């Protein structure tokens, strides 16, 4: 190859062994960004895509027009949800390391993106998350036992053993089924919102996508359909700087903010400090109100940082500085909300420690209960013959035949003393 290649190749500011460098992240001071009316025309508020909505200042005070003025009790609930999400994540990761579930994905450092947004919506609004918004389940009061049982593929698994851990869904909680295929939920959320509009209902839809995944076709479909039909939907793009090993520059983040994709389609794009609980709450509330008033969709870029590995299969020390998170300029969403409550005089370190202990105990109790529904190594287990169900509403003859064949095979195997198939996650 000639040496004068002109191909530009993005590269992250720091690789393993180098000093973290987040100077590329443009940050507005807390309170500095104006809050337009929810009826503003998209093209008149394009600067929202370049700035960064922030409410919590370095002094832990809430300032500026985006302050949602939440009651201390609400803030405490938010803190609790975020903390529970984090402790749940930590526990599940540990459990995976012990080989007791096959896989896990943490949301550490990004809890506000799910929790604050979830709280700003109403329970009948429909949520289409990616795999990193377990906080939404927590906000909506999901029993952790259910989530754990899904990860265990046990007899209480909502997915009946069919899905990898963390691929939750919750019909009655209005949380859609998480897909292993990136980005597909985005146009589906738009379609759901279009249906709500067609039916004249007030509920809106919200979806989440990673910055890396926004390169997929589905992002484009969603933005375009949402713009064309002015669908009542909130499209959240979670820019946590990384997509497995790939820096956000490879998703197109080098030359512009992701929020600016919005104005490209005539959709308001808001860039928000994703680690600022109040800011995330406020922009979500703004977008929800807009959508409910037939104002159409909003794209929200949540600027945050994926503090943990991509998943339990990943080792980020291969591609980024080990302590990069500590240098992240937007801090930790849990700490920041805690500090705010303390600054308000509505929280103390003691209460925090006590809460942490409580929640830890709660998680432990949930795990104990979950295990009673079966684990990898013992206890009750699902009937494999159920794998032929739910492919269609009613089982067609060919599947019934296969089910019978499998039943016979299993019976024969048992008769011949052949060892049963090992449980999930073994082998």
């Amino acid at each position: 190859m000639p040496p004068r290649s002109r191909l530009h190749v993005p590269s992250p500011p720091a690789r393993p062994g180098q000093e973290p460098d987040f100077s590329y992240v443009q940050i507005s001071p807390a309170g500095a960004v104006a809050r337009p009316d929810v009826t503003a025309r998209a093209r008149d508020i394009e600067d929202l895509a370049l700035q960064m909505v922030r409410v919590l200042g370095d002094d832990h005070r809430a300032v500026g027009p985006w302050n949602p003025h939440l009651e201390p009790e609400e803030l405490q609930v938010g803190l609790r949800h975020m903390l529970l999400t984090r402790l749940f994540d930590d526990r599940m990761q540990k459990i995976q390391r012990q080989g007791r579930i096959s896989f896990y994905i943490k949301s550490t450092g990004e809890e506000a993106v799910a929790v604050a947004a979830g709280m700003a919506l109403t329970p009948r609004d429909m949520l289409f998350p990616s795999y990193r918004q377990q906080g939404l389940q927590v906000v909506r009061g999901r029993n952790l036992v259910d989530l754990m049982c899904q990860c265990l593929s046990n007899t209480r698994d909502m997915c009946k053993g069919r899905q990898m851990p963390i691929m939750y869904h919750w019909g009655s909680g209005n949380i859609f089924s998480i897909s292993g295929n990136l980005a597909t939920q985005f146009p589906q959320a738009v379609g759901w919102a279009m249906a709500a509009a067609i039916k004249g209902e007030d509920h809106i839809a919200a979806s989440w996508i990673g910055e890396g995944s926004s390169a997929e076709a589905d992002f484009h479909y969603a933005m375009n359909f949402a713009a064309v039909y002015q669908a009542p939907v909130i499209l959240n793009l979670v820019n946590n700087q990384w997509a497995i090993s790939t820096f956000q520059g490879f998703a197109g983040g080098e030359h512009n903010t992701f929020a600016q994709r919005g104005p490209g389609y005539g959709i308001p794009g808001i860039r928000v400090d994703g680690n600022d609980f109040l800011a995330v709450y406020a922009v979500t509330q703004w977008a929800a109100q807009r959508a409910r008033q037939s104002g159409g969709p909003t794209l929200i870029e949540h600027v945050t940082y994926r503090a943990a590995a991509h998943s339990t299969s990943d080792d980020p020390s291969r591609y980024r500085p080990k302590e990069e998170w500590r240098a992240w300029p937007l801090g930790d969403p849990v700490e920041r909300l805690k500090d705010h409550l303390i600054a308000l005089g509505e929280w103390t370190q003691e209460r925090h420690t006590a809460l942490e202990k409580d929640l830890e105990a709660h998680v432990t109790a949930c795990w104990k209960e979950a295990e009673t529904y079966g684990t990898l190594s013992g206890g009750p287990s699902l009937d494999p013959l159920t794998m032929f169900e739910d492919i269609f509403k009613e089982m067609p003859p060919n599947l019934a035949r296969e089910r019978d064949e499998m039943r016979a095979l299993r019976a024969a195997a048992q008769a011949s003393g052949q060892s049963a198939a090992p449980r999930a996650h073994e082998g």
Partner: protein
Amino acid sequence: MARMNMVQALNSAMDVMLERDPRVVVLGEDVGFFGGVFRATEGLQRKYGEHRVLDTPIAEGGIIGAAIGMGANGLKPIAEIQFADYIYPGFDQIVSELARLRYRSAGEFAAPVTIRTPCGGGIRGGQTHSQSPEALFAHVCGIKVVMPSNPYDAKGLLISAIEGEDPVVFFEPKRIYNGPFDGDPHKPATPWSSHPRGEVPEGHFTVPLGRAEVVREGRDVSVLAYGTMVHVAEAAVRMAGVDAEIVDVRSIAPLDLDTLCTSVCKTGRCVVIHEATRFGGYGAELVASVQEQCFWNLEAPILRVAGWDTPYPHAFEWDYFPGPHRVAAALKSVMEAK
């Protein structure tokens, strides 16, 4: 009863369902104001409003993705993909999402989306307006796949698809939109009005999914066909002068294997025909399943007559098309085998 061609029958099916069920919506490229490039949705937007019959952006993946979301929110979307050749941008949403939603959520979510799409050649469309990709969908568990061969079935099957709770890919052999076509391009076109299956009830009726139909009884050999090829089979049988039984498969998936095997076990000989390329085509599944069940009755190898393993060439479409001569030759060949 009324005389309808296939386009009218499809239009009538959607009309009936839009009327009966407020959850039914139609969406696709040019389907709204214009009524579709093949006119299948003509008049529907005028009648039901532009919130129930929607023009969409040109994005097949977006159409399917949005339809899934609509389906999850209680609607029953009918999505038109303008040509089956253009379904591939929507392939991921169909295969990874639509087909899997009920399964992966253990029944808590589902999207009853019907995807209508014109397929097949013989209309001088070249390789991008002539494809028959049914095999690609047949292999994907979780979707039903249908291809009617006449207006009556088209309407009855489409209503079944819309009323059902499962996703369906509904292939419409566009060469027979206006009349049955027996594979001879020299002949003057025949209209559906001259065909018994051009008589179609005006109101609601269904033809169940999952059932094949014996359209000609015979003793010597079974011909398994669907779509346009059912008519080609009829011509070929006449040409070959054999007492063939013709089975219209109709339901590509799930397959009505019993009807097929009953026929083949009876006749002991079988020819499978389709318009799609042969290699890895749906015909292979028919052969594989039938030989397994009818092996001891078979008196000759099962032959396939299909499109060549090339794209559908514009100038040579009648050389490409597996017409009655090729089918007749295969019939003779299986009859001679012993």
